């Protein structure tokens, strides 16, 4: 019986734990942490069960909320793609929670229980976005995660308030565009259910309709703003780099990747590959934009002297990978992009965690903070090294395989500029990470001048931070080693018809 209720439990458990924190744990911060841990663990196990069910059964799971039949009520749909993303999102947020015990106490000592409640609401919103099968419900959940992220980002360092304000303005423009686009589609079709829409939008009349076209443009623009795709990425580096450590570990890997997931969902589950690539014909332009995103993101990352800002620009470049891969309009590009969602969640999470640990210990976020890190914090440095190798794309880490598929997709369609952009970005990443490794491993301790091996005390981050870092670094290698299994069992099923 309970197995039929798994789809709702995934997003309900974090929500309930968040509410329980506000009601029961106003004073006791350990209880708050424990309640949230309970909710997140439950959600993660529910997500894994859902993935298992999808792999076992044939076809997606449909869950009717309130027992109403789909076009009239709201339904949750979990297919291979959403089950995979649900697992990654709930897993990543569980890891971040374990990691956050110390950092939250250090950074937001006064309102820990509120912080954890908002954390729970954010994760619940993200999971709901992935699971829902209704385009208006998607808007509501989008706004929940956006509101919660405004709160978490605003409690940051430095210029966090002004960065958050810009994010609010741009994020609202994005959300309003999305809502307006949904309005256009609703006027023309009269329905909000994704499965229903996908049937209605296949007719020739709908293919020719201007308002459907404009609805699609508005929706896709709205989502691009939310994910920080190249010309619309202005808010992202400031907002994420001013955030506190826990917040950036939670938001940077998840928000953008979930937005990419939504783009895939809307492009192929609401509209169709046929409509987007044959009727609209902007495929070339978007791939070019993705190339520019990759190049600009990588170059800006090179120019930064602040570790977190550098990572934020890497995130901007990685978004270019995924958007480009999807718009290549062939199956290898698509599987590369989907595989990259998975590996990028883990890579970004792991990088931000490692940098967060360095900031936690040194209190400094510039490149100089990495000085001597290999001797002072050997485990953190090793984790950082693994992530770096994965971002660069060195086998057997997962970063290699996603690039492999993206590049082979680009070669198949002859989009050499995308290949060039990917290789260029890998090159820049080599420079970026070896620069840091050089600072961390080889550089002398200027302040002491004569520092020798004996002087250096190992000053590693606490175990509660190290364990999640090690798990995520190990997962980078594991995902890489089991690429074949993942592709055959999950990603192969996600490729939409017509690619």
């Amino acid at each position: 019986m309970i197995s039929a209720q798994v789809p709702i439990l995934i997003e309900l458990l974090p929500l309930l734990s968040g509410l329980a924190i506000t009601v029961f744990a106003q004073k006791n911060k350990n209880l708050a942490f424990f309640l949230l841990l309970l909710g997140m663990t439950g959600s993660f196990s529910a997500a894994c069960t859902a993935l298992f069910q999808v792999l076992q059964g044939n076809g997606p799971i449909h869950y009717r909320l309130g027992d109403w039949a789909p076009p009239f009520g709201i339904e949750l749909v979990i297919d291979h793609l959403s089950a995979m993303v649900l697992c990654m999102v709930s897993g990543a947020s569980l890891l971040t929670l374990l990691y956050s015990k110390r950092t939250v106490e250090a950074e937001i000592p006064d309102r820990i229980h509120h912080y954890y409640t908002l954390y729970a609401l954010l994760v619940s919103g993200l999971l709901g976005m992935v699971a829902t099968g209704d385009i208006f419900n998607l808007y509501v959940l989008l706004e929940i995660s956006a509101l919660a992220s405004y709160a978490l980002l605003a409690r940051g360092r430095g210029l966090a308030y002004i960065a958050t304000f810009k994010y609010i303005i741009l994020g609202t423009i994005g959300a309003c565009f999305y809502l307006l686009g949904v309005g256009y589609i609703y006027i023309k079709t009269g329905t909000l259910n994704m499965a229903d829409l996908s049937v209605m939008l296949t007719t020739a009349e709908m293919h020719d309709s201007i308002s459907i076209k404009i609805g699609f443009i508005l929706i896709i623009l709205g989502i691009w703003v939310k994910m920080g795709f190249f010309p619309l990425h202005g808010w992202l580096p400031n907002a994420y780099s001013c955030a506190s450590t826990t917040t950036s570990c939670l938001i940077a890997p998840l928000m953008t990747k979930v937005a990419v997931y939504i783009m895939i969902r809307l492009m192929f589950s609401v509209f169709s590959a046929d409509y987007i690539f044959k009727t609209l014909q902007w495929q070339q332009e978007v791939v070019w934009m993705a190339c520019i995103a990759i190049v600009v993101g990588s170059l800006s990352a090179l120019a930064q002297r602040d570790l977190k800002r550098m990572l934020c620009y890497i995130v901007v470049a990685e978004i270019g990978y995924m958007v480009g891969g999807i718009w290549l309009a062939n199956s290898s590009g698509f599987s590369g992009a989907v595989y990259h969602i998975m590996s990028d969640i883990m890579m970004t999470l792991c990088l931000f965690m490692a940098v967060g640990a360095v900031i936690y210990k040194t209190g400094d976020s510039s490149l100089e903070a990495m000085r001597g890190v290999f001797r002072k914090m050997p485990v953190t440095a090793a984790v950082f090294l693994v992530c770096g190798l994965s971002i660069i794309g060195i086998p057997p880490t997962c970063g290699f395989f996603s690039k492999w598929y993206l590049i082979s997709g680009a070669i198949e369609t002859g989009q050499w500029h995308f290949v060039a952009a990917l290789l260029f970005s890998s090159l820049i990443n080599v420079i970026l990470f070896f620069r840091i490794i050089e600072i961390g491993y080889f550089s002398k301790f200027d302040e002491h001048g004569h520092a020798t091996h004996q002087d250096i005390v190992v000053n590693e981050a606490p175990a509660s931070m190290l364990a999640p870092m090690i798990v995520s670094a190990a997962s980078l290698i594991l995902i890489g080693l089991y690429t074949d299994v993942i592709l055959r069992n999950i990603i192969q099923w996600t490729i939409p018809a017509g690619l």
Partner: protein
Amino acid sequence: MDNFIHNIISSYNYWAALILIMIGMYGMIAKNNLLKKVIGMSIFQSAIILFYISISYKTNAAIPIIIHGHGATEHVAIDPTLYVNPLPHVLMLTAIVVGVATLGVALAVLQKIHRVHGTIEEDEIMESIKE
């Protein structure tokens, strides 16, 4: 020309909402005062609400509350053309709530900005950051 005028008259609801959207968007991007940006945001959101509500209207239809609906045990046929479309109203209740929530959060952040920087003019804030 007649066609054009007919187009405007038969769909002036969209025109009104879309022009308001333009005004809101201009305010959000162009204004220097951050509070005016927030006002632009509010106009934008309200315009979208207008847009949706106007979809739900049908000529000669009333609000969607069934007359004598309560306690009707025998099955009475209901004529759907007599009531306006309820769905956009429901959706916009949600959008209004979202609008209020975003407005509240934006104002709170604005108060903090004013407390930190002493002004809510964007150029002055940018100058104070550079120094």
